[in-house]
């Protein structure tokens, strides 16, 4: 096969990921992207939204799962639902805005009306269907629900497949990152707030996920922003003087290889994982006294310390959602095509915490995740260079062999390695291979 030839999607793609190397076509071949939509995004649990986006009956949030338009809704009985965003009649999408509150879902084409659980409640001139073999009470007259949906502590996931592990089983290893973020709220609850940043990347979705726990890149890619921030801070502030939060946030991005190894990588089944644990680049933010007091009042000092001891960098819930618990931000992956991905950045309010916490999360997103900031464009630049660079012939394979065979087996599919290891890539790609493998 020539280096630019398309892989036939009907062929087995298993051989494209090997223990120590990955074939470039999985990032560049449109046919493989289509197969991923079917076998990964069509099988796995995919993050949909947060329950706090649909607090009240009648509220909806419109989003996508892979190529599928879906709605997260809140029904009058208090339950939430994940529905295909498609009228049961002629297929028109049911809402125009990305979020809102309605009495019921009324299609803008022929005014068919549906309850928030998808049940068809009215069709104009419904008697026209009398004795025709079609009725609004038929299951096919309803907006169709996704085969499976569930919530873990407010985070709603759905699956386009009726088969597979339940959500809690699937989240094994990284549920604790969600737990820690929720536990950081004195009232034990999160609320999504503060808008969203949508950042268009001209690159394959997997580059973003692989980069999150690529601990060998920050000191190179983010040198210009981090070292400049440190230099300016040194000039503007005296020795030992407290620097603003912005400097605390950008400064650590160029920590060296020693720090990266201490941070460490944790890998779990289904491609999940996180870096950090006991420490991360978020570990040395200034204390917010009022927040500590609220936490002590809610949990007691011992439990509060326990919660704060968990300091993870990026948690990846493969393939659709990533979290930073210590700074209460989340990124959601939206694959558009083989070389186009939109990354959404969201922030959370910790209920019962002072406003300073939310303001710090907002500041973090502005500085690191916005399309116009000092850090994100350097990441996006390298993904874009990968996407165009891999068009080059010469060698179809990329190595994955750093620290291969040196993982520490923690049991039950949990692996640990130092931060410079390729473990996170190998683990995500092993899950890729598992999802993409031909069904028996």
């Amino acid at each position, binding site marked *: 096969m020539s280096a630019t030839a398309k892989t036939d999607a009907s062929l087995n793609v298993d051989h494209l990921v090997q223990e120590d190397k990955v074939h470039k076509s999985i990032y560049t071949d449109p046919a493989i992207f289509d197969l991923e939509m079917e076998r990964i995004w069509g099988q796995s649990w995919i993050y949909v939204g947060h329950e706090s986006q649909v607090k009240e009956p009648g509220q909806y949030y419109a989003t996508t799962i892979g190529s599928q338009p879906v709605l997260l809704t809140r029904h009058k009985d208090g339950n939430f639902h994940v529905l295909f965003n498609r009228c049961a009649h002629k297929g028109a999408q049911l809402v125009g805005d990305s979020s809102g509150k309605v009495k019921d879902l009324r299609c803008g084409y022929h005014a068919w009306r549906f309850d928030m659980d998808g049940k068809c409640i009215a069709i104009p001139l419904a008697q026209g269907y009398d004795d025709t073999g079609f009725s609004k009470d038929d299951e096919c007259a309803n907006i169709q629900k996704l085969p499976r949906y569930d919530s873990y502590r407010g985070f709603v996931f759905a699956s386009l497949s009726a088969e597979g592990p339940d959500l809690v089983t699937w989240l094994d290893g990284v549920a604790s990152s969600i737990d820690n973020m929720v536990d950081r709220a004195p009232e034990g609850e999160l609320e999504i*707030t*503060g*808008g*969203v*940043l*949508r*950042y*268009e990347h*001209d690159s394959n979705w997997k580059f973003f996920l692989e980069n999150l726990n690529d601990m060998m890149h920050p000191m*190179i*890619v983010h*040198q*210009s*922003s981090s*070292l*400049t*921030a440190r*230099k*300016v*801070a040194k000039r*503007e502030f005296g020795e030992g003087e407290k620097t*603003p939060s*912005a*400097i605390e946030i*950008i400064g650590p991005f160029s920590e060296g290889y020693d720090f990266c190894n201490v941070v460490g990588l944790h890998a779990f089944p289904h491609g999940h994982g996180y870096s950090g644990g006991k420490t991360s680049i978020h570990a040395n933010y200034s204390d917010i006294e009022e927040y500590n007091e609220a936490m002590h009042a809610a949990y007691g000092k011992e439990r509060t310390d326990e919660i704060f001891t968990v300091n993870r960098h990026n948690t990846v819930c493969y393939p659709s959602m990533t979290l930073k618990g210590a700074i209460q931000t989340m990124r959601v992956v939206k694959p558009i095509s083989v070389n186009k991905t*939109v990354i959404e*950045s969201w*922030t959370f309010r910790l209920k019962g915490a002072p*406003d300073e916490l*939310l*303001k710090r999360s*907002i500041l973090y*997103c*502005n*500085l690191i995740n*916005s*399309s*116009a*900031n*000092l850090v*994100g*464009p*350097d990441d*996006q*630049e*390298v993904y874009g260079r990968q996407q165009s660079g891999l068009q080059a012939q010469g060698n179809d394979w990329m190595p994955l062999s750093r620290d291969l065979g040196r993982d520490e087996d923690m049991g039950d599919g949990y692996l640990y390695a130092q931060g410079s290891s390729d473990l996170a890539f190998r683990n995500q790609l092993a899950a890729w291979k598992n999802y993409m493998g031909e069904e028996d």
Partner: protein
Amino acid sequence: MAESQQLVLQHNIEQFIYAEVRMLDEHRWHDWQSLFTEEGLYWAPASQDQPDPYEHVSLIFEDQLLRKVRCERFNHPNAISLQPFPRTSHLVSNVMIDDLDGGNQINVNARFQMHEFRRDQPAVFAGSYDYELVKNNDSYLIQQKKATLVNCEGDLVSSNVYF
């Protein structure tokens, strides 16, 4: 205010804004930074009706310190997304003085287009500018410049320079 004074004021404000965006296009970052008051803010919201930059994300929200960091990074040899450095052309029009509070502050609204070209990628950003200017001798200083993109809630590509 007499009509002739209004015309002079309108002219002066327009010239100030033209000079400001020209500094961006000509990469005169030091001169550009000196147009702001010490507490001056640059803000590109991420939502049309965003009430504040503190409890809602923004594309850019920078005080003097962060402007220094951004502008000094422009000269860093390893700023990979700035290789090559983007070229821009800011066009400003529809300049209207919204409010003369009779005191020191003048509020101005204008429309802008920023054409950007980097490597082989052209991009266009468009929207409105809201300036809060304060008189400074014969000229003005910027208390706040807010650049609201028409598509600030949409999917946005990377941009490194100020709108």
